[in-house]
């Protein structure tokens, strides 16, 4: 499943870059994060609970930053395991300066295997879309907070 979009932040590109590359701030932007550990600059893990039906889907996710070209491009790979689902995701974002601040073009290729994957896109796509919307709004807050500080 591929999801992509653009978003404009009212902040300088350097500020947006800092937020996107700060695992601690990203953890606050990700929905459902219950715990978060940073191993080094390019590796971190998170335990998340994705609101999926009754009780939610708990998943342990390992992140790895696989490529970066400061301050315009980064690619992060994530692999997660949970009961009934195995998730893998590659997400990339491109930052460009814009008149009103910074324009971010992003894309993510999400693969879900296991019984949850069998629910198919018609069930998962709305959930993913909702999660992305929540994440982007939270990210906006983090960017504003960083710009203000």
């Amino acid at each position, binding site marked *: 499943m591929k999801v992509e979009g653009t978003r404009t932040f009212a902040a300088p590109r350097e500020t947006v870059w800092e937020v996107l590359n700060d695992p601690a701030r990203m953890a606050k932007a990700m929905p459902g994060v219950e715990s978060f550990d940073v191993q080094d600059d390019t590796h971190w893990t998170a335990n998340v609970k994705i609101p999926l039906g009754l009780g939610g889907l708990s998943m342990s996710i390992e992140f790895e930053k696989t490529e970066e070209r400061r301050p315009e491009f980064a690619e992060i790979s994530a692999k997660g395991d949970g009961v009934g689902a195995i998730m893998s995701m590659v997400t990339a974002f491109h930052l460009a300066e814009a008149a009103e601040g910074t324009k971010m073009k992003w894309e993510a290729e999400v*693969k*879900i*295997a296991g*019984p949850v994957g*069998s*629910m198919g*896109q018609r069930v998962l796509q709305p959930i993913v879309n909702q999660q992305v919307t929540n994440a982007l709004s939270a990210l906006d807050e983090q960017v504003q907070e960083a710009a203000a500080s």
Partner: protein
Amino acid sequence: MTETQTQTRTQPLVVEREETKPGFVGQNVPRKEDKRLVQGEGVFFDDVKRHGMGYVHFVRSPYAHAKIKSIDLTKAMELGGVYGTLTGDEVAILTDPFFELSVKPGADIRDYALAVGRVRHVGEPVAAVVASSRELARDAADLVEVDYEPLPVLTTAAEALKDETILHDDAGSNVVWQGVFDWGDWEGAKAEADHVVTIERLHFDRFSSTPLECAGALVEYNRGTGQWTMYCNHQMPGIGAIWMAPALRTGIDKLRFVTQDIGGAFGNKICLHPQFVALCLLARKLKRPVQWTEWRTDQHTANAHGNERTFLDVEVAVRADGTLLGFNCRALDDCGAFPRYEPLGCIIWAQVTPGCYRWRNIRVDFTQVCTNKSPVSPNRGYSRMQHLWLTERIIDIVAHELELDPVEVRKRNYVRTEDMPYETPNGCVYDSGDYARGLDLALELIGYEQLEEKRRDAEERGRLLGFGIGSTLDSGTNNFGQSTLLNPELQFSGNNEVATVKLDIFGEIVVTLGTVPQGQGHETTAAQVVSDILACSPDDVTVRPGHDTYWNSNAGFSGTYASQFAVTGLGAVKGAADMLASQIKRVAAGVFGATEDDVELAEGQARLKANAEAAIPFMGIGAIVNANNAILPMDVRDVTLNCRYVYVPPFQLPDFERKFGNLTLTYASQVHVCLVEIDPETGVYDIVDYAAVDDCGKRIHPQIVEGQVHGATAQALGAATTEIFAYDDEGNLLTPNFYDYHVPHALDMPPMQNGYLESPSPFTPLGAKGMGEGGGAGIHAVCAALQDALKSRGKPVVWRSCNPYHQVWQYLQEPPRGLEVSGR
């Protein structure tokens, strides 16, 4: 021969071609099985329990294609109540790969009971966990940690054919089998034709029957004798043993299959050997009985599907008057991750090569490939259904395109009753039938004369009405020699089935069957045949329920499959009963000092024809032979009253070079017609009227036949409208349960009227034909009706077999064509 006809709208329309004889055959006697089933007293494998048994849960792959890097069982084994485990690595050491039927490259595929090193479809068993309860085994299976490395996924046959990703490295190609079937003179037919219609693509979707009872077995291992006993629902133990015994490095005498009641099988309980071998290994390893009961989701995901087949570049040679001269196409068959029963599907379709029609020039370039989907297995209508869908689609697409009447095109081209027995271009022999008469009956039942009036009425209501026909054949009683057309090294040919009939000390008449009934009423129909021969009541005949390979007699092809019980099973029963009747007469003749010809059987007695009062009841005959035989004359002391008969159909070995020969013994025919109404705004449609006419020769028990026709119709309508195994690009099955995979409920069934013709088979002991599978006539009828309804909306080609509402909506939005007509 007389013809009688009765009809009401509530009773089936019946045309019998011979006088009804007195006796129980042909009567709707009460079914022997029903009392225990209706009262909930049936015994299914899951009802059988053993002291100390363990419950098995399979750890299944979440990936469609991946390397297995490691399996860690530690956490599962630490759970209290877990008895043990099994992995693919153990299986690879303890067993040999299953026997493959194909020639190379398919012959080199290595298929084991559990995945070894690599998984090739979602749901493939990777390991097994055994615990003290079913729930605990399932929980423990979740604790098994498998590290996978995902690999590229093949979800279409076209992608697989490129061989850019290879599923089975040992084979070196995804192609299982490839061959060209060329009968008659296709090029000559093309040159002679007034029109050549080319259809770019037709696709038969993946679906399967879904038995009420999922698969499973309770397996015990006897360490003293090295024998396994499987209380199970395997529907074809003979073939199961042929696969299992060499893999387990043992003889088939060490494998005992026991069934009583089976909750439906439809073919997908033929290929249970991988799971059963895993169970045998576990029972031996853990020194305790183990039971596996398949979960419904696993049945959908990883038991077995029906073959998915694409027909490409279909060319049809037609004369201007609608005479069909022949067709040519490429067929691409997707058999999923492992061939198993395949590539038999690459030849089984050839039993019905020309469908119901007289075209003589047919060329099919057939290729079967593996993909990362569930393996396939025979599924009710196995392989012929796909091919018959092709021939029926051709008829309607060509008729629409050339503005010919589909009814007239059919009648012009049907094999005629006066041509029976009719040899097809590939050497099969259609035994009897009257397809045109069947169509007339169906048209009569549905009120075809008022079609245009109904069409106008629907238009006034804003609906599009369509009429469709599906005329199909149910070929029954396989000649297993057809397997040699795929692989000349295979040592299979002919067919056989066995039954025993005995008379016991107190006069009990006991029948055992080689067949493995799954709800088809074998106990009832066998009793009807025996009681007519022995001149007693079916109530006096006990037919042992189910099957036990230790105690029932077996032939190599024993089982219930391929629409053959009425021929092979009842042929064996008739043979054994005839033997017993003769022995009873000989005993009576010996006692009376008469000859066998002087004795007749009547009212449960053997008596002198000349003096009905000189009679010995069967009880007396049984007592004399079994317990008082010193009174018998010496020349009848060979009588045992325990008669075994093996029925062997009169087959020859087919010709490998020409791919020519008689592949099945009987051809039941079906003509289904339907009316659909489509809402053009949404694509939602209803089947508003339906009629089915069946001709399976002599009907032993008309009510059972009618039940089979209803079941086959429901199966076909599900396949036509909602039942589809859809996969996403990652190889996830998107319809793994009854929520997403909708099987027709009683309320989904349209109003249906039934009619019957009886054209007795000249080739079978009772004039009966196999008929249990149907031919998918409902799929063809619905496709044709949709095509007819949509002709005013851009004349779309209905190119898929399964057409849910959203598919019809797509036809309405962008009518697919993919069609060319060249002509002179």
